[in-house]
C-alpha cells in the first residue's frame, strides 16, 4: 500500500519566545526557523511597520502565488486518464431504489449512516431529526429541535447518540435510548456555539469530540462532555458549507469547503491550514475524502465535481457534462473509490467513473433537489435525502443469472426512453 505522508507536527520551544507550542517550520531569508504562530504574526507586523507599502505586499503575494503554480506544474507529468488507460472501463450501470423512507414533513437537509450499516439519522427544514432502521424502514427515534433548518446531523461512532444543528448556531448532542417512550430532548447537550448557522458536523473517532463548520467562516473542534472549544480553524473568507475527516491511520486532518470557492485541508492539532485549493468557479457545497485519504472530491454550484490529489498538490479531474447545469449539492465515494455518487439540484443523482471521468449511471426518482448523498459504511448501498421530504436507499440493479447482453439492452431501453421512476 502507498505510504501515507503525514504531517510530523513539532511541539516544542519557539525559537523566539521559548514557550512550548505547536511550531510552524518556516523559512526566513532561506534559513529554516521554528516559530510559534503568535511570533510569526509579530514578525509579520514588524515587516509591515518597516514601511512595506501595500503595493509591494501585493506584488510579493502575486509573485509567490505564481511561483507556487510553477512548483506544482513541475511535477505534473501525467494526467489521470492516462494512468487509467490500462484499467478496464465500466459498462453502464442501472441503479434501483430499494427503500423509500417517508416521514419528514418538509425538506430533508442532511443524513448520516450509523456504523451498523443499516441505521440512518436524517434532519429536515421543519426542525425534525429522525433515526430510522433503513432496512426495515421503521422510525426508531424522533426529536423536534427548537429551530428550523436543521442543516447538519451526524451519527456517533458508538451508535448511541446523534448530533444536529442549524439555524440555532449550535450543535447539540442527543444520547439515544432503548426506551422508545423516553423524551430525548430532556438529555440534550449543547456542545458547539458559533456566531452563525451550523452547516455541517461530524464526530471524530470517538463520541467525545465533534468537529463543526459554520456560516461564520470558521470550523471548530469541541469536547462533547464539557462543551469546551478545543481548537478553532480560521482561514475561510466566507461561509464554510461542508467538512470531512480524513480516513487515515493518523486521523489528524480534515478538509473543508466553503462559499469562498476554496477547499482547505487543516491539521486538527495545531489549527493550521495545511493545504488550500481554489479552482472551483462557485460555492463548494460538499467535500469528501477518497477512501485512501490521499485525495478528496468536491461538489459545487458551478455544476462540476472535482478530484484533488493531496500528494501531488493539485486538481486532477473534473466531472462535468454540458447537459448538467445545476449545482452538485453532495458527493460520496463507493468503497473502492472507483465510483463517485453526486446529488444535484436538478433532482438527479449522477454516478461518475472516478478514473475515466465518464458518467456510468443516472438515477431519477426524487421530486425535488437532492440535498445529501452518502454511501453505507460497508458500501452495499447509498442513501439520498431530498427536498421532496423523502430518503431513498438505492443499490446497483443486477439481473440474477442473466447474460450481459440482456443487462445492456435493458439499461439502454431505460436510458433512452427516459423512464424517470422505475419501481420494480
Amino acid at each position: 500500500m502507498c505510504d501515507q505522508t503525514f504531517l510530523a507536527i513539532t511541539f516544542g520551544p519557539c525559537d523566539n519566545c521559548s514557550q512550548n507550542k505547536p511550531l510552524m517550520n518556516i523559512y526566513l531569508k532561506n534559513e529554516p526557523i521554528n516559530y510559534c504562530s503568535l511570533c510569526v504574526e509579530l514578525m509579520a507586523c514588524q515587516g509591515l511597520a518597516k514601511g512595506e507599502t501595500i503595493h509591494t505586499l501585493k506584488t510579493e503575494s502575486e509573485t509567490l502565488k505564481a511561483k507556487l503554480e510553477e512548483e506544482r506544474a513541475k511535477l505534473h507529468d501525467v494526467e489521470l486518464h492516462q494512468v487509467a488507460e490500462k484499467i478496464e472501463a465500466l459498462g453502464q450501470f442501472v441503479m434501483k431504489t430499494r427503500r423509500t423512507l417517508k416521514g419528514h414533513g418538509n425538506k430533508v437537509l442532511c443524513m448520516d449512516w450509523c456504523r451498523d450499516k443499516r441505521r440512518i439519522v436524517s434532519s429536515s427544514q421543519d426542525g425534525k431529526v429522525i433515526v430510522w432502521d433503513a432496512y426495515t424502514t421503521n422510525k426508531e427515534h424522533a426529536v423536534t429541535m427548537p429551530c428550523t433548518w436543521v442543516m447538519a446531523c451526524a451519527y456517533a461512532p458508538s451508535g448511541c447518540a446523534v448530533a444536529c444543528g442549524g439555524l440555532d448556531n449550535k450543535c447539540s448532542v442527543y444520547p439515544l435510548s432503548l426506551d422508545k417512550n423516553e423524551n430525548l430532548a430532556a438529555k440534550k447537550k449543547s456542545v458547539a456555539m458559533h456566531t452563525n448557522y451550523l452547516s455541517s458536523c461530524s464526530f471524530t473517532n470517538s463520541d467525545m469530540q465533534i468537529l463543526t463548520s459554520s456560516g461564520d467562516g470558521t470550523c471548530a473542534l469541541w469536547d462533547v462532555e464539557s462543551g469546551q472549544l478545543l481548537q478553532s480553524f480560521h482561514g475561510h473568507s466566507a461561509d464554510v458549507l461542508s467538512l470531512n475527516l480524513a480516513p487515515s491511520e493518523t486521523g489528524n486532518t480534515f478538509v473543508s469547503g466553503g462559499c469562498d470557492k476554496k477547499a482547505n485541508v487543516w491539521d486538527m492539532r495545531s489549527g493550521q491550514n495545511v493545504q488550500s485549493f481554489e479552482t472551483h468557479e462557485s460555492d463548494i457545497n460538499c467535500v469528501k475524502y477518497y477512501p485512501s485519504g490521499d485525495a478528496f472530491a468536491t461538489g459545487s454550484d458551478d455544476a462540476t465535481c472535482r478530484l484533488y490529489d493531496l500528494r501531488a498538490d493539485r486538481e486532477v479531474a473534473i466531472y462535468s457534462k454540458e447537459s448538467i447545469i445545476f449545482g452538485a449539492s453532495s458527493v460520496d465515494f463507493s468503497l473502492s473509490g472507483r465510483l463517485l455518487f453526486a446529488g444535484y439540484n436538478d433532482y438527479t443523482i449522477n454516478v461518475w467513473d472516478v478514473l475515466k471521468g465518464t458518467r456510468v449511471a443516472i438515477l431519477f426518482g426524487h421530486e425535488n433537489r437532492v440535498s445529501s448523498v452518502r454511501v453505507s459504511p460497508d458500501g452495499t448501498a447509498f442513501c439520498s435525502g431530498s427536498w421532496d421530504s423523502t430518503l431513498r436507499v438505492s443499490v446497483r440493479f443486477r439481473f440474477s443469472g442473466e447474460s450481459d447482453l440482456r443487462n445492456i439492452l435493458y439499461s439502454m431501453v431505460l436510458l433512452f426512453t427516459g423512464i424517470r421512476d422505475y419501481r420494480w
Partner: protein
Amino acid sequence: KTLRHFYYQMMLQMQDPSTGVKGTDQKLNITIIPHVITGQDIVAWITKNMNIDNDEAQAFGTMLVAFGYIYPLQDHKKLVLRPDGSLNRFQTPYFWPVQKWKAEDTDYGIYLAKRNIRKKGVLDAYEQEEYNKLHKWMNHKWDFIVMQAKEQYHAGKARQKADRVVFDCQERAYWIVHRPPPQTHSAMDYGLDRHIDPNVEEIIYTQQAVMRSRVKSSVSLGALAKYITTFKNHDPFLIPCLPSNPWHTDDDSYWELNAPDVEIPTKMRVERWSFSFYELLNDPRGRADFKIFLKKEFSGENLAFWEAAEELKWGTAASMSEKAEQIFKTFLAPGAPRWINIDGRTMGLTVKGLEHPHRYVLDGAQTHIFMLMKKDTFYRYLKSPVYKEIQKKAISPAQLQQNMRNRRPSIDPIITWQKEQEEKAKAAAAAGPVDIKKLMASKLDRK
C-alpha cells in the same frame, strides 16, 4: 493577536497630548463633544509618523475605522476615513476589538432593546429585522435581556448629559463595526463582500506552500489507481457481495456473516486485512487476530500503547491528566510493567511533555510505535501461522451457497415403498373376478 498589539501602540501614540493628532471641542446642539479630530489631520499624522505616502495613509486610516479604533461622527454608518474636515473621535479602549470579548448576540440584543426602551421607532430597518430575529431565537433569554437593557438605561440616565452623548456615540460605533448595516464593510465582517487585503500572513502561508514537498503526479495518481484495483472485488457496486446484498434480496446473512465480533470471519474479510495495516486495525475482528499473534510473540505492549494513546487523543478533556499518568506508569516509566522500546530522544521529549499533559503529548511516541508495527510486525503477522490458520478457517459464502445448491433432498424410502404397494394392489384388483359383496360394502362405506 499581535496585530491588535500593534494597533494598540499606534492608538496610544496618536492620542499623545504633545505628539499625537490635535483635537478640538466640537459643539453638537447644546452639548460639547471633547477631543474631536478631523479626517485630514489623521491622514497627515499617519503620513508623517509612519513614513508612508498619502494613499497608504488613507488606506491605513480606513483600516483603523473598519476595526473600530476611530469612529466618524457624521455619516457614521460608512466605516471609511475621509481625508477632509469630517469629524471623528478615538474610540474608548473599552470598545476596542479584543480577542477575549466576542461581540455576543446577547449583548447586541441588550443594546437594541435599550434603544427601543429609550425611544420607540428609533431603530433602523436592518436593526429592527435583527431585533426581531434575536427576539425569536433568544426568546428563552428575553426576560434577562430586557432586564439588563432596563438596568443599563437607568444607569445611563444617572450620567451627565455630555458623557451620555459621548458614550452613546461610542457604543453605536462599536455595534456598527460588529454588526455592520447592509453595504457597509467592517473588518469584523466575514461575509463574501469582505474586503480582502493581501496581508503578510497570506504571504507567509504561500511561502510555506511553495516549500512543501510534493510528489510526481505519476506516482500519486498511480497510487490512487492501485487502491481501486486492490479493493475492486470488495466493492459491492462493482462485484456482487456474497451471499447477497441485503438491500437487494431482503436477506441479511451478509451482515450476520460479517458481524464485528463473529468467531469465524469470511475469506474476503481476511483478505482485506492483508491490504494495509490500517485495514487490519480498523476491523475489530482483524485487530483481535493481530492481538493473538502479538501474544505469541510477547510483544503486545506496542499495540496496547497505541490504543491507550488513541484513547487519550479522542477522549474527554476531563480525563486527560488521569489517562496520561496511567500511560506513563504502564508504558514509559523506567521499569514499567509494559515498557515500550522507543528511541531515547522521543522518550525524552514525551516524558518532558507529560509534565503538562495535553491530548497530543504522545504523538511522537505513538507515531514511532505505529510505524514500527506497520513496517515490521504487520508483515511478520501476514507470514505467521496465526494468519495462515485464520485464512484456512475463514468461510466462503460463495462456496457455502454452491454446496447448498448441489445438495438436494431425496424422496423418503417409505413413500417409495407405499407407492409400490399401491401399484401392486391396483394391478391385482384389475386382474381378478369382481366380488359383489365387497363392492356393495365399499359403496356403503363411501355413503
